[in-house]
């Protein structure tokens, strides 16, 4: 997929900005608070129906405005032109999404159609933060990869909330619900949960070789990275969801007393983790800052490769503020690598260093972002 242009109205500090993109690297250059990250946020709506940066549409609405609009012209892999319009109305408190001038009945159906891969300073939490950050990473990739994964995920969250509500009734030794009342929710939970775990573990198997290879290509020293999907108690050896369902229901039965005491569901994909290690050590606790940065960059490029291989559309790569602390040699290396991946949009406060000869594809385009306005630098 290729993003031809984006128009944003009343979005963050943009009153009405239009950006036309080149099909290779696009630099958005501007000082802090000028509105360059907002353009990336707007593009991320096409992929995720929301900002990668904040969960609420209200926070991206320009101060004093009643509605914002994000409009995109895209060229798909098969050569057709697609038009997306996303409009958020403050008073109605809702967002409408239209593709080619017809309204999407289910907004989720946009996810996976125009894939994006985002690398921002917040992405650092994936390797350094809590397990929830790594689950979010898995879910974001897999939701773009497969709509049935997204449906399962939404269903699972709903079942989990319902089940936790029941468990809460018995918290701290108060009466509590009967086993019969809890059972249907446990059955739904294990069945949907098993499908989610199965997809995640398949993903890790497919993703790991690409991650290791990309990491080997950009790491300064020879370092060995691995990743492993962790669930409670342990993954069964047999493939498929049958064994997983049994494992989950046995684990649930074992923890039921503790669950009733704590008023929450204690096993399932919402408690799992993706264990990342470097040179045999747990990355979360032992990696240096530089090692974290390299790992996260490798994960994102491998994510790009994974989605590009699995979907009909090549994702657009969105890199936010990646170059602020990099030396010239590293900056040059990364830009050369990114130029091989297709279209990307990269924010920076000053022009990142690179040697033009190593850049593949269309020559990079530079867009100056200043006080909520955008213009192409000739």
């Amino acid at each position, binding site marked *: 997929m290729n993003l031809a242009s984006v128009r944003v109205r009343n979005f963050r500090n943009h009153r009405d900005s239009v950006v036309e993109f080149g099909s290779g690297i696009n630099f958005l250059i501007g000082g802090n608070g000028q509105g360059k990250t907002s353009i990336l946020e707007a593009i991320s709506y096409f992929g995720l129906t929301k900002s990668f940066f904040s969960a609420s549409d209200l926070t991206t609405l320009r101060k004093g405005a009643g509605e914002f609009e994000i409009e995109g012209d895209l060229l798909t892999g098969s050569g057709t032109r697609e038009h997306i319009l996303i409009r958020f109305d403050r008073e109605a408190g809702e967002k409408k999404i239209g593709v080619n001038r017809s309204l999407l009945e*289910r907004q989720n159906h946009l996810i996976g159609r125009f894939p994006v891969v985002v690398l921002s300073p917040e992405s650092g939490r994936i390797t350094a933060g809590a397990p929830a950050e790594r689950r979010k990473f898995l879910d974001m990739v897999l939701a773009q990869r497969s709509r*049935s994964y997204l449906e399962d995920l939404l269903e699972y969250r709903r079942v989990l909330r319902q089940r936790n509500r029941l468990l809460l009734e018995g918290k701290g030794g108060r009466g509590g619900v009967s086993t*019969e009342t809890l059972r249907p929710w446990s059955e*739904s939970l294990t069945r949907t949960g098993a499908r989610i775990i199965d997809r995640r573990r398949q993903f890790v198997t497919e993703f790991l070789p690409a991650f290791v290879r990309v990491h080997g290509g950009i790491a300064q020293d020879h370092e060995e990275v691995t990743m492993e999907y962790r669930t409670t108690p342990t993954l069964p050896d047999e493939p498929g969801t049958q064994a997983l369902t049994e494992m989950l229901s046995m684990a649930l039965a074992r923890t039921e007393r503790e669950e009733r005491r704590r008023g929450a569901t204690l096993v399932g994909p919402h408690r799992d983790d993706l264990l990342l290690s470097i040179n045999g050590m747990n990355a979360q606790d032992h990696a240096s800052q530089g090692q974290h940065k390299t790992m996260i960059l490798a994960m994102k490029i491998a994510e790009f490769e994974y989605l590009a291989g699995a979907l009909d559309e090549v994702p657009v790569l969105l890199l936010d503020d990646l170059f602020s602390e990099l030396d010239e040699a590293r900056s040059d290396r990364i830009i050369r690598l990114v130029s091989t991946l297709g279209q990307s949009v990269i924010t920076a406060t000053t022009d990142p260093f690179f040697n033009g000869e190593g850049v593949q594809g269309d020559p990079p385009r530079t867009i100056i972002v200043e006080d909520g306005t955008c213009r192409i630098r000739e």
Partner: protein
Amino acid sequence: MLYTSEALHQLIEEFAQLPGIGRKTAQRLALFVLKQSKDDVARMAQALVNVKERIRYCSTCWNITEVDPCAICSGPKREKKVICVVEEPNDVIAVEKTGEFRGLYHVLGGSLSPLDGIGPEELKVRELLSRITQDVEEVILAMNPNVEGEATTLYLTRLIKPLGPRVTRIARGIPVGGDLEFADEATLSRAIEGRIAV
């Protein structure tokens, strides 16, 4: 002061309580009522009152009715050995429209949803179980295809099976007239899960 009439304001407030009606629509409806003749308005008001005064629940199937038991429960041509369990009276209307089903109904009054404070006691579950005698051969569970409907189906299956009848559930799948190609993955994968031999 937004409205110069308290009566108009009140009517808008009432309309805005209705499901699917926003403030703007409520305002339009209220102004429409204002333009109607007094007779028309009186008839509408009476219709609203009648709904509450005349309609009650069938003490057998818990569908809405004006006579108890309802016309379906007392219908001489209905098959008494099949009971179709649904969530709401709307669902009875939907199934009746098909003209395919000649058995009896049981309206639960909703589906299990702890978040909304709805457990088995809030639904007509005990009433359903008491209807399942030796004469009942099949119970069809026709819940909505969502998380709550699924849990209700699982819950009822466990309760009904030991009582003897065959328990079935309606298939979830591709809508008629829908193109296989355009069915979303979740619908399609569930339709495949629930496939039947030909």
